């Protein structure tokens, strides 16, 4: 399935882009993450949370094929 991945802040510095679409087979968030770690080797040194459809998820969450976002530490206010 085709998913859209959004990158923010220092994560976008690593990926050199704000957004991309990736074709990936069904599975868990952890499988998507290992794909991304292979593609962007500096990613594993970064601190971030993952959101799926604007809700934070963990590595065992099932991929639903929608919008994923990699969110570095929050700095609002």
């Amino acid at each position, binding site marked *: 399935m085709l998913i859209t991945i959004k990158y923010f802040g220092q994560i976008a510095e690593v990926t050199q882009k704000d957004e991309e679409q990736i074709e990936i087979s069904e599975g868990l968030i952890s499988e998507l993450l290992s794909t991304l770690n292979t593609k962007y080797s500096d990613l594993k040194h970064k601190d971030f949370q993952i959101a799926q459809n604007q809700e934070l998820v963990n590595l065992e969450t099932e991929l639903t094929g929608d919008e994923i976002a990699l969110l570095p530490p929050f*700095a609002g206010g």
Partner: protein
Amino acid sequence: MKDKKPKNVFREGPISSDFIGNSIYKHQTKTSIGAHNIFLGQVRADEIDGKVVSAIEYTAYEDMANQKFYEIREAAFEKFELTCMHIYHSLGTVKIGEICLFVFVSSPRRKVVFEALEFIVEAIKADVPVFGKEIFEDNSHQWKKNT
């Protein structure tokens, strides 16, 4: 006073004192209010390894952030007896000394507004996906992290 769907909390650039003053003025017609409380987040000239911050450049995952602001707003109305509440957060560049966050709560009585404001500001810091790039005077940068 509850909104049905998330509205946009973000404003481009710093929040001006005129805007803040005008917000206070607009509440003069709401005469059930007996107490307002206001939080203003200001960009600080932090010194890090001998370099001084000159501005913060804010970005956000805007859709999720507005949804989180909405949830915080709903939770605050649920928890406290508030007449109204407003939140504004900057995007883009905000220089040191300028305001990047404006939270405004109003209630018939004072005790509520102290508690509500702290609840709201702490929730914003913890839960809303806003990112801050601290720009130093020499144009290098580092990423801000809420503690």
